[in-house]
């Protein structure tokens, strides 16, 4: 079944804009769901805090390619934020040094994310979203500007 998807700005700095996707009618984004699930989880609190700190560093320095670990396929921009010796993963699309779209994430307990249906689902959501985003970029409905994505607020994507 296709999911109705909208995109919201989470936070913006001079260097970077962090977006997240939402499948919910109330507008709760995938990144907010990630935070709600892990901010009070004692087992992964250190990982969670390091991920939030990493996002803050990205806001200050820009979304350098070197900050991300590619996680999807050669054809997509899906990446994870690699934190020191951590098991918690936050998946995202690194579109450029100025634009990052945050997805959901979870604890990596298997060797690859493909072996975990939940994590695989989060990665697939981002892969599907990127395909639709690229179609909208090609059609000119959305454009990538210096400071972020233009036209994205008015569109509901079906992924």
């Amino acid at each position: 079944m296709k999911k109705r998807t909208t995109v919201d700005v989470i936070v913006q700095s001079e260097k970077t804009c962090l977006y997240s996707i939402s499948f919910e009618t109330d507008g709760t984004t995938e990144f907010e769901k990630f935070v709600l699930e892990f901010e009070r989880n004692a087992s992964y609190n250190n990982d969670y805090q390091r991920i939030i700190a990493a996002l803050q560093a990205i806001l200050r320095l820009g979304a350098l390619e070197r900050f991300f670990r590619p996680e999807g396929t050669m054809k997509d921009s899906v990446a994870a934020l690699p934190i020191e010796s951590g098991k918690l993963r936050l998946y995202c699309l690194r579109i450029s040094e100025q634009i990052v779209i945050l997805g959901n994430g979870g604890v990596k307990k298997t060797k690859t994310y493909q072996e975990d249906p939940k994590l695989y689902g989060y990665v697939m959501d981002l892969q599907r979203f990127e395909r639709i985003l690229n179609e909208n970029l090609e059609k000119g409905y959305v454009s990538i500007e210096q400071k972020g994505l233009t036209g994205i607020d008015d569109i509901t994507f079906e992924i």
Partner: protein
Amino acid sequence: MNNKQEWFKEKMATVPKETMTEVQLSAEIIARIDYILKEKSMTQRDLARKMGRSDAVISRWTTGFPNLTLRSIAELSCALEEPLISVVK
């Protein structure tokens, strides 16, 4: 500032200052390595060869937000022939 931006600021405020500072320092070192590699037209593999280290180790040291030791910072700095950090005097 919109609601989500306010919400994110609240979440950032819950992270201990020490963690914020550590990850920020790590990110600044990685950004500096990135800048030097580009300036010198060096790849990560070139760096690994110069250091006599495996690609996997250099990847771990030069991507993401690693908790580098002074020893690894010194090794990287020597191989890159550039300072990576300085201490306030």
